[in-house]
């Protein structure tokens, strides 16, 4: 089967001024000295476009931590890609915002942690909320598509209506209500972050009503936590089927979390052509098709829709990356997920940060082994 990647997620650095407790970066991060250079990224964007990639998502860490962010935008655009910048916006001065837009930026996605400053800063582990509000108003004055991304979880979902109101006030084109996905740092903190079923049901109702009310003014996308789903998500649209991620050191992955799966060797763009990595590398081939599947996936009629769910989640819970995603109601290991739901901390209005959660750290300057 011939798969074409339509999107490239470029994690251009793991450095970040925020320390969010649900960061999607891996626990073992890339140091600055390992990062691909401007010229290397430029070459990779060209290789990606030749493979069929249409959209480039510049992310991190904080992509603006790289002094060459403007050049990366320009290189992406020159390769013919639609360029999206996913940023916390910290320290983004007007001159630099102007330079990014002039370089051809198509879309800015600005992340928020909450509608209220104190809670937002508690999640981010630093003071960030006020500067985001200021930046949002400035972004709106530029001709660039603007998404507000707000990450939701047990501790802030009660304020979802206020978050939607904030998005309206900031006049964004699109709002992404993104439930935490439980990988990386979020997996470590899942007991403190996982919402209740009741909260998830309310989220769906609130978002549906807002979509109807704001039709034509604001698009709202909503990502739910799959722990409450009956069937697993088609993670990344299938392993190595439509999307790839390149980490700061140039290692090409099928998703953010894939490095947790043992026994796979992920190739990097410094030593191999991107086309070979996508089309032929053993790691990208590993979970394509259904040869690798176990029962109940293998004989399941849903296998062409959800591909057995998420390989990383299967590994994180069962120790076996070939297993059926344990969130699936048909999985013999579904009890593992039900236990997490049952053990998640009771919903607490407390504004005190939990004693036992882990803030994301920054990469050291020493490369990881």
């Amino acid at each position, binding site marked *: 089967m011939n798969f074409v990647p339509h999107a490239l997620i470029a994690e251009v650095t793991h450095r970040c001024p925020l320390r969010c407790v649900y960061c999607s970066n891996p626990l073992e991060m890339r140091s600055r000295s390992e990062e691909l250079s401007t010229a290397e990224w430029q070459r990779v964007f060209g290789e990606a476009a030749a493979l*069929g990639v249409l959209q480039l998502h510049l992310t991190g860490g904080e992509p603006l931590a790289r002094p060459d962010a403007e050049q990366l935008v320009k290189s992406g655009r020159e390769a013919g890609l639609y360029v999206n910048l996913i940023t916390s916006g910290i320290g983004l001065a007007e001159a630099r915002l102007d330079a990014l837009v002039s370089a051809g930026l198509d879309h800015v996605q600005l992340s928020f942690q909450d509608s209220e400053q104190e809670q937002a800063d508690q999640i981010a582990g630093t003071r960030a909320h006020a500067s985001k509000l200021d930046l949002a108003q400035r972004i709106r004055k530029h001709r660039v598509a603007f998404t507000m991304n707000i990450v939701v979880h047990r501790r802030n979902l009660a304020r979802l209506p206020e978050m939607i109101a904030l998005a309206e006030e900031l006049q964004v084109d*699109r709002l992404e209500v993104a439930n935490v996905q439980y990988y990386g740092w979020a997996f470590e903190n899942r007991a403190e972050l996982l919402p209740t079923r009741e909260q998830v049901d309310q989220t769906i109702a609130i978002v549906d009503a807002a979509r109807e009310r704001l039709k*034509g003014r604001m698009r709202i996308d909503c990502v739910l936590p799959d722990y409450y789903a009956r069937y697993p998500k088609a993670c990344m649209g299938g392993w190595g089927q439509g999307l790839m991620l390149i980490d700061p050191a140039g290692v090409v992955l099928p998703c953010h979390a894939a490095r947790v799966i043992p026994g796979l060797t992920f190739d990097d763009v410094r030593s191999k052509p991107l086309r070979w990595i996508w089309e032929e590398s053993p790691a990208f081939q590993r979970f394509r098709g259904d040869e690798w599947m176990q029962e109940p996936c293998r004989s399941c009629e849903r296998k062409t829709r959800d591909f057995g769910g998420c390989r990383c989640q299967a590994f994180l819970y069962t120790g076996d990356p070939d297993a059926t995603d344990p969130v699936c109601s048909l999985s013999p290991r579904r009890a593992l997920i039900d236990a997490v739901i049952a053990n998640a901390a009771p919903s607490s209005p407390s504004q005190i940060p939990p004693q036992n959660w882990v803030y994301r750290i920054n990469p050291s300057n020493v490369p990881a082994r």
Partner: protein
Amino acid sequence: MTQSADLGPVLLLPETMLRLTGPGPRIVELCDGARTLADVIGTLQAEFNGADPEMIRREVLAFLATLNERRALDYL
């Protein structure tokens, strides 16, 4: 709007894309920030002069309404 090797003409939007078929690419092309809605409809009516002008008008409006719902249009 761009040409995808495997999908044909597509309109790229934040975190998504729309595949364009039939007169879709031409309509998007005409939405250039200079033409008014009446210009867009008039141009297409002239280009497809064998078709019912009223049907063209309704189809263009329906197509633009879809784009608008996806928040793909800006008005100058």
